[in-house]
């Protein structure tokens, strides 16, 4: 009985608590920190942290074979390639349009 409660805490309430705290922190940051690079980086870091807890605990990825995790997560590097390409392109177009 004690072990079931422990796993329930570990698999459900612990990630839920963390997601809840991060979401509340996001609201605090949204209203207190001025717009800028620091705010953007904080938000992106918080989003990735939430994504990690949803995938690892709710979607159970942490308790699967690592093979599965590698096969599903490694292709997402391609999104990084798209992001890098459009980032570069975006800076160029911004300079072209507004002479920045």
């Amino acid at each position, binding site marked *: 009985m004690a072990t079931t409660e422990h796993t329930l805490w570990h698999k459900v309430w612990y990630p839920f608590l963390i997601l809840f705290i991060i979401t509340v922190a996001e609201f605090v940051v949204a209203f207190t920190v001025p717009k800028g690079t620091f705010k953007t980086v904080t938000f*992106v870091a918080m989003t990735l942290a939430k994504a990690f807890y949803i995938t690892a605990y709710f979607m159970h990825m942490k308790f699967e074979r690592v093979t599965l995790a590698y096969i599903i997560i490694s292709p997402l590097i391609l*999104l990084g390639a798209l992001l890098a390409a459009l980032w570069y392109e975006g800076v160029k177009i911004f300079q072209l349009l507004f002479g920045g």
Partner: protein
Amino acid sequence: MAVVATQPSELSAPWSGGKSPFGNVSWGKLMMWVFLLSDAFTFGSFLIAYGFIRFKAPNWPNPEKVFDAAPILGHGYPLVFVGLMTFILIVSSVTMVLSVEAGHRKDRKGAALYLFYTILGGLTFLSCQAWEWTHLILGGTTLTGNPFGAAQFGQFFFLITGFHGSHVASGVILNLVVLIQILRGDFDRIGHYNRVENIGLYWHFVDLVWVFVFTFFYLL
């Protein structure tokens, strides 16, 4: 020199044949993961394209100005309503985990009850989104323009939240189908509740996408 027959090492053993390299992951679950990967590419491409257009449009609307209304409260409450929507979706993910967990214990009533709560959460989220869309459209935000700034804002907002909302809607339908199957006792007959776990993965993915939409549309 004699060839030494080697035992497969810990690392290569899963791939040495004769059994699935993924352990006891069912084919349905593996295929759900592959589908979710393809869906992640779709949403990822949408969000990156959105970032690109937003970056090159100088008069991008300030989200705190656009999303400042809530039912009953009226205007002047930025992020309150969307915060509620985020919370509803996270809670529905929690009830989904509890349903999957009850399914593992072959607890038919528990699985059905928590899945029912998940469906309620999904429907509440969809209602909130319907209210928000109505509010924005009546306020003049359309695909061709809006009173807050760059016209592309409306296009990307309706494209991405609409695509996400249609995922929530199909998730609710899938959950309803599986709820009926639980109540009919289908999974007790076949001996496992794997299907609850598979639609659970889909549901968590919808929650995961919302986390990104929330940050990039409402917070930044």
